[in-house]
């Protein structure tokens, strides 16, 4: 039963995505509804899988695929993967609904939703894969689908160039990860993640260091930490808004998942100890860099894009602490960041749709014309600074607690200072758009309902998860147990 749920969660979006382009003529306008229904079904399956996980089962499925190479089509859901899976599916559902209002209905709409479903399927497959080869296939599917979405539906005349840059840049990271995966396979003789976890490889320290470096840098490109982030601002600002929401809220967390699943789960902590300080420093640099660039930017979408760089810095810092609260905080931050980032980007989309403008200096005084947007974006801005009672407070607390468990106190103090800069850009963002006096000639229309409903839902979730974080705490604590095996 649970393996059926597992298979449905993964295959239903992929199959639906393959069939959607067959819509023609009058059926094209239903493509969005069909896609959202499919993702909602997948979400229901994920809830069913949660029930199974709570009963103590580990849903898994394995079918022989390439026997000569020992590669299997193997899926497995454990507590580590669960928060990420839930995040991916929920964000995709909200993005699909948002797209009903955002996109114009034309002959290409089914293709858009088909690619969106492939994108979601790629992310779900990455999280569920229990085999090295399968993991990489889905990893690349994520990239190819999102790149096609940016190239064809991207805004502005630079869409093609941005898509090319995004592909090549992310492919560098992917190739590093590929070498790491293949090296792992060659050195251990097995392609199954379950077996790798059960029997951690005993490797020559130089090989182990090389592998961890490959994985960290490769996944770091996907996480968009400084200095591997340069693809992010362009890709996020050119992509159509539903795709941007999925990129920022779900795809970036795949990098964190990769780091948790590969170097941290498989190698002994003693091999990883040397990486702790560099990762923490890289995290802090990203936090400050992202925040400073967000302060400097003029385009509202790019401001939130740089804010993603900054938030990923928090996560990298948490990962670098190699401590239980740090890792738990990083995983929790992915879910919270998913809620908040989606909220902020949707808010930006509402502003852009309502006013037709993107530059922050052209905006102002929108609190009366767009009250819902103002409140929701305000919630998002407060949440991103990590203030209670919103969700990100809990994950940031955990991350900083993890930081102080390491001997590098100075770095931890610097990390704690970063929210000050976050507050600076976030609150200034809100003030300039909603509270400052309205410029001349700014016409405001009401954005479509389909764009406002997911936005309101996310604002509610940001508060709700902040007030009742217990389930999330529980999930990530068990997830970190999977990584550390109780031994750290």
């Amino acid at each position, binding site marked *: 039963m649970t393996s059926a749920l597992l298979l449905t969660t993964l295959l239903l979006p992929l199959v639906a995505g393959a069939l959607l382009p067959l819509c023609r003529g009058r059926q094209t306008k239903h493509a969005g509804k069909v896609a959202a229904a499919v993702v909602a079904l997948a979400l229901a399956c994920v809830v069913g899988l949660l029930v199974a996980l709570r009963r103590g089962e580990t849903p898994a499925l394995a079918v022989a695929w390439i026997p000569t190479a020992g590669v299997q089509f193997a899926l497995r859901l454990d507590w580590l993967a669960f928060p990420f899976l839930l995040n991916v599916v929920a964000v995709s559902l909200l993005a699909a609904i948002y797209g009903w209002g955002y996109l114009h209905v034309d002959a290409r709409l089914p293709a858009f939703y088909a690619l969106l479903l492939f994108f979601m399927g790629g992310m779900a497959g990455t999280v569920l894969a229990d085999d090295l080869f399968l993991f990489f296939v889905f990893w*690349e599917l994520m990239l*190819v689908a999102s790149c096609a979405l940016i190239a064809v539906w991207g805004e502005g005349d630079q869409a093609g160039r941005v898509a*090319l840059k995004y592909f090549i840049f992310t492919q560098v990271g992917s190739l590093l990860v590929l070498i790491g995966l293949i090296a792992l396979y060659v050195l251990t003789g097995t392609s199954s993640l379950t077996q790798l976890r059960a029997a951690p490889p005993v490797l020559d320290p130089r090989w182990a260091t090389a592998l961890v470096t490959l994985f960290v840098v490769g996944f770091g490109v996907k996480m968009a930490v400084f200095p591997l982030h340069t693809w992010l601002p362009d890709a996020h600002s050119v992509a159509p808004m539903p795709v941007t929401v999925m990129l920022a809220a779900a795809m970036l967390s795949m990098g964190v998942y990769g780091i948790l699943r590969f170097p941290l789960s498989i190698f002994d902590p003693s091999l990883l100890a040397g990486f702790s300080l560099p990762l923490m420093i890289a995290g802090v640099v990203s936090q400050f860099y992202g925040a400073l660039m967000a302060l400097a930017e003029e385009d509202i979408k790019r401001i939130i894009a740089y804010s993603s760089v900054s938030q990923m810095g928090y996560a990298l810092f948490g990962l670098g602490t190699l401590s239980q609260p740090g890792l738990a905080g990083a995983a929790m931050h992915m879910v919270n960041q998913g809620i908040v980032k989606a909220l902020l980007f949707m808010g930006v989309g509402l502003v852009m749709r309502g006013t037709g403008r993107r530059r922050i200096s052209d905006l102002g005084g929108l609190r009366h014309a767009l009250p819902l947007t103002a409140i929701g974006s305000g919630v998002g801005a407060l949440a991103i600074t990590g203030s209670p009672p919103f969700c990100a407070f809990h994950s940031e607390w955990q991350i900083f607690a993890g930081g102080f468990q390491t001997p590098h106190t100075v770095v931890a103090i610097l990390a704690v200072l970063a929210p000050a800069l976050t507050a600076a850009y976030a609150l200034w963002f809100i003030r300039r758009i909603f509270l400052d006096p309205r410029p001349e000639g700014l016409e405001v229309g009401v954005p479509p309902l389909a764009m406002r409903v997911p936005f309101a839902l996310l604002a509610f979730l940001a508060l709700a998860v902040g007030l009742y974080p217990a389930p999330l705490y529980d999930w990530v604590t068990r997830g970190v147990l999977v990584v550390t095996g109780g031994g750290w």
Partner: protein
Amino acid sequence: MRGDVWVVLPLACLAAGAFAVYLVARLLTSRNDLLALLTALVFAAALVALVPLQITTGVEHLPAWGHFGPGGAFLRADPGALVVAGVALGLGLLVTLYSGRYLALDHRYETYYPLLLLLMTGLVGMVMAADLFNLYMFCELMSVAAYVLVAFRRRLDTAIEAGFKYLVMGSVGTVIILLGISFVYREMGTLALSPPLSPPMGGMKGGGAWTRAGVACFLVGLGIKSAIVPLHTWLPDAHGRAPSSISAMLSGIIIQSAFYALLKVSLGLGFPARDLGALLIVLSLLNMTLGNGLALVQTNTKRLLAYSTIAQMGYIMLSIGVGLRYGVPGAIQAGFFLLLAHAVMKGLAFLCQGVCHFYCDATLIADLRGTAARMPLVAVAFSVALAGLAGVPPLAGFTAKWFILMGILRSSDALGYVGLAAFLLNSLLALGYYLPLIGTLFAPPSSPPMGGKERGREGRQPPPPAPPPTPGEGRGRTASPPELGGTEGGRIRVSPWMAVPIVALGALVLAIGLYPGPWLDWTADVGVYLLAASASR
């Protein structure tokens, strides 16, 4: 004459078929489609004739035909030969069906189909040859047929020039091969290449100065025919001017078969595998870098694909070189798997380009804009081919890349890792021309080009409004024949002769990528065979 007569059957089928088709064309009918069907039947028969050979082959006993003893066998169906011949016949079958419509623009069908069959005879004979004389004879047969087919559009002087260049360079290669044969004969006294795991004949030890000189001659001569850098310069021109069906064969299997002959001969004459491996790795670095680098600056689609072939040959050579140098049969297997996958993908790419040329007179990359609107099937198939060549999962090129990387990571010294770094960098570099080409296929007809500045345009100007498509209007360079399908609202109906091979190849790219097991098993014995061939020296 003793031995398995089955070995001769594919060759006899092809050669007899060539004569039969010529007679039919001269005496009975000169209709393109009927001749294409007949030729396709011949290919199918030859493919069927390969099956019993595939079943009985193994490293210990290889089906062979001819005298045994000092004269040696004439033909031997070793595992590598079966892989190359199988791919060649399969590709040839699909290309023939494709030509059933594609050749409507050129008219000398009674020359084309027999020449194609003779080309295949030469190719299959060359890879199955077990002694140097037969190798030379079949190699010549293949090459001469290829020269004529490249220059097939003889009304265009550029086609004649390209064919002539190929002829001159190929003939230089042939003469050098002949020189090599004479050197080997002087020392060995025999022309036979003995099979692995059996005692050398005629006192053949390998290693004398004359033999080494002979091996060097073979490396150069066969290197010209397999377009190894720096002997590759005929390839882009030949591709740019030949009919697309011939380009598909040329890039897909002809140069790879010459490369296999190179491997067999060098190893069979005593060139140590370690040294051959090192040489191949070094040459592959040149191939990869030059191929990808020059492909980036091309504006003609077929020349871009030609340079891409040079780069992909570099990947094949790298994998086989690593396997030979470090004794990893899996790496050689991966190299042949890529050879197979590349034949399918490159063949598909050239056939799609041919369709665009046939209906829309497209030769430059910029001419491909709007293909997705006019011929969506061709655009999707072309993208599948290009994405496969770029190594995107779950297509065949990615699976090949995975297995090649697995092989390279078993290297035990620095040369292998240099090759690895070059392989990765080149994979990235290649994206710089595969991706914009895919983008151009899906771009609307008059938008600015993707991925680069337009030459001669400063500042941004709004693109001019697209002129409405006028059905039936030729584009000016070569007049479109009136029998081409009409265009309703911009959509062009592609003839089934061309659509079916394209769909078949596209499905094969996906199938090889998603389910590589059977294909890997097919190529598994090649590595063992080649390493055994060198170990018994």
